[in-house]
């Protein structure tokens, strides 16, 4: 057993002591000595921090006080360290490096009493994130009545705003049960009806725009392709087109055809994947299995044409890296014929299932006016009757050689968005037949090209989920600035509109109906803290707190 008398001797030397009761002795310590004392205490085995409290005694003696209660188990004794903190300089050394249990206590004292500690502390550990700044509720300056006036919980205000006396908050996320991506929706429900929705995202910011600035032009397509796990090829195509447009490079026609062919194959597999997930979400797993079964042939086809099932890796600035020969074209056509037949059969059956129909029809309604105002893209906007399609509106790759007429539905519900995708699978099969038939001979990439600094270029692609647009400012060896905008970024604000006044049980499907890709959306840090709909992101803070607490 350590010689605790040494500890007592040391403490009495450095601080004035005063017994509280027979087992408890209090030592009044100058804050300059706190760190050293903590260091000494931490060396004694069997001494542990039992609690710490901060108190506002300015009315009594002009100080804030910190009381650290250490226990010595084997002696059944307490040591209380009293540390006065002057009002003018409400700061104290942090002892968390030596007494690790002090971590949360310090965070609390910081939040509630406004004591600054000598280390980086996250804001609002205990208090809500929208708590008014510089209001420390445990200070005697505030009575309960004052605090009630100063702060009203957001949910209460929101409940009043939407006129619901008994609104209940239901969180979806931070991990979507079916989409396997991090996002967070707060649904306010009265009974089974959703009355309001808030979205929080940007939980998976990956910093890739910054990363690209340190990569060479021909390395970035491989990074871009990894923005999305389902429709990555649209991003590498967008990037390459942006650079090509900026530098006025004319890509060989054959390369343009190959890009369009791969893009359409990607759209087919993506839509089949979505239809499968949608059926799964509404409990029709038979449909899910068959959609994914016929999708598998498309995946194998993609591998045959590019070398990879996904993240095809064949785009470079100035063209593509893999050619398509006659034999591959033949195989491709055979797969498409088979797919068309099977898909037609299966989707007819699936959409006739009464439960599927009633879950899709009339749910997640998005009025055309809202769709237009929010500048939505892809099947989301086309499901509300607006014929917006980059392939037709801003032709790129080989779409200028084949006609693309946007597939639209006017109903604006989940069924409409599903039908748009069904229509687009058939459309893609037809487009592929045209492209494979018309593909001209020639080279598939530029021999060489020279980068030039400070040129601006835009590249856009109609991804399965909607328009993807990349903006490039060129640098000498690497992009100077590369800005990515994925379709979900544009489409997410529509989700709260679709969810409002809907049934809670339809929420997962309605969220999925825009085919969201949260990671794609979160690729860049663009947060407007003031804007109403998407709020600040507390996860960064949460993560800090978590690590701080575990350190």
């Amino acid at each position, binding site marked *: 057993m350590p010689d605790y008398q040494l500890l007592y001797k040391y403490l009495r030397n450095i601080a004035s002591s005063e017994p509280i009761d027979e087992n408890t002795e209090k030592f009044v310590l100058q804050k300059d000595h706190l760190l050293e004392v903590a260091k000494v205490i931490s060396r004694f085995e069997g001494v542990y921090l039992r609690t710490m409290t901060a108190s506002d005694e300015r009315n009594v003696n002009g100080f804030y006080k910190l009381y650290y209660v250490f226990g010595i188990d084997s002696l059944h004794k307490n040591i209380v360290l009293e540390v006065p903190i002057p009002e003018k300089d409400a700061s104290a050394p942090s002892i968390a490096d030596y007494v690790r249990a002090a971590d949360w206590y310090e965070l609390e004292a910081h939040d509630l009493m406004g004591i600054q500690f000598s280390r980086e502390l996250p804001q609002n550990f205990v208090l809500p994130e929208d708590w008014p700044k510089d209001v420390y509720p445990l200070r005697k300056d505030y009575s309960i009545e004052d605090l009630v006036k100063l702060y009203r919980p957001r949910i209460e205000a929101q409940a009043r705003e939407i006129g619901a006396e008994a609104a209940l908050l239901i969180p979806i996320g931070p991990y979507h049960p079916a989409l396997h991506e991090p996002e967070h929706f707060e649904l306010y429900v009265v009974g089974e009806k959703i009355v309001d929705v808030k979205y929080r995202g940007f939980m998976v910011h990956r910093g890739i725009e910054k990363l690209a600035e340190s*990569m*060479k032009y*021909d*390395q*970035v397509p*491989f*990074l871009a392709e*990894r923005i999305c796990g389902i429709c990555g090829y649209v991003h590498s195509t967008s990037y390459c087109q942006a650079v090509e447009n900026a530098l006025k490079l004319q890509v060989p026609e054959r390369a343009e055809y190959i890009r369009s062919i791969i893009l359409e194959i990607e759209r087919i597999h993506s839509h089949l994947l979505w239809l499968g997930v949608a059926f799964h979400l509404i409990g029709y797993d*038979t449909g899910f299995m*068959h959609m994914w*079964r016929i999708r*598998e042939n498309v995946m*194998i086809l993609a*591998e*045959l*044409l*590019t*070398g*990879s099932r996904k*993240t095809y*890796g064949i785009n470079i600035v100035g063209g593509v*890296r*893999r050619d398509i020969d006659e034999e591959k074209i033949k195989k491709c056509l055979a797969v498409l014929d088979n797919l068309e037949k099977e898909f037609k*059969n*299966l989707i*007819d*059956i*699936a959409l*006739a*299932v*009464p439960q599927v129909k009633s879950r899709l029809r009339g749910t997640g309604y998005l009025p055309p006016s809202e769709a237009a105002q929010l500048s939505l893209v892809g099947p989301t906007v086309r499901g509300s009757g607006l014929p917006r399609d980059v392939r037709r509106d801003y032709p790129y790759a080989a779409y200028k050689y084949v006609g693309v007429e946007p597939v639209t539905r006017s109903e604006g519900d989940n069924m409409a968005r599903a039908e748009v995708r069904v229509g687009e699978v058939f459309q893609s099969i037809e487009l592929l037949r045209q492209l494979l038939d018309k593909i001209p001979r020639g080279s598939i990439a530029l021999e060489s090209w020279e980068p030039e600094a400070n040129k601006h270029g835009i590249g856009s692609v109609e991804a399965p989920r909607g328009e993807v647009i990349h903006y490039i400012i060129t640098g000498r060896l690497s992009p100077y600035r590369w800005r990515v905008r994925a379709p979900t970024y544009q489409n997410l604000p529509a989700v709260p509109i679709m969810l409002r006044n809907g049934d809670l049980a339809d929420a997962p499907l309605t969220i999925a109906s825009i085919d969201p890709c949260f990671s794609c959306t979160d690729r860049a840090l663009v947060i407007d803290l003031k804007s109403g709909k998407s709020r600040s992101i507390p996860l960064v803070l949460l993560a800090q707190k978590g690590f701080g607490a575990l350190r």
Partner: protein
Amino acid sequence: MIDMVKFVKVIPIASKVGTVTIRYPYDKPLVTESFRGAIEIDPAKCVGCGACTRICPPKALTLVQEGNTLILRYFVGRCIFCGMCADVCPEKAITITKEFELATDQIHDLYTDVEHELVECERCGTKFVAKKLLDKVKSIVEVLPEDRAKLCPNCRRLETLSRAATPR
């Protein structure tokens, strides 16, 4: 057929299709002829120029110097199987294999090293180039001044400058 019971039509489809999963690894191969798997570096052909390390997007290929040896290190754990290294290799030393069964419980199984002997600078002793690369350059560039070939870039610059500055 009445629409209400149309969904039963899936039953004959399902029974006709049967099981679609493969009895991996006993059945037919899982990958097509175009598949890109792990790469293989031929140590006999590699000259240690490092072109592959400069194009590799995820930096799975790196050049590391350990003592007198220059190592071209391939870490398949980072590899994205794009095959850009094979495209740029001037010696065609890199081939793309169809290997995809790469899981292991030993992390060193994921590394492949190709070792190269380094040449020392005759003046300052810096090891500056793989011997094979120097020999390769010598065999291509006929006018390479023999007396300066074994100087590191810095010493070579100084030597060239001092010769130019010395009045003849």
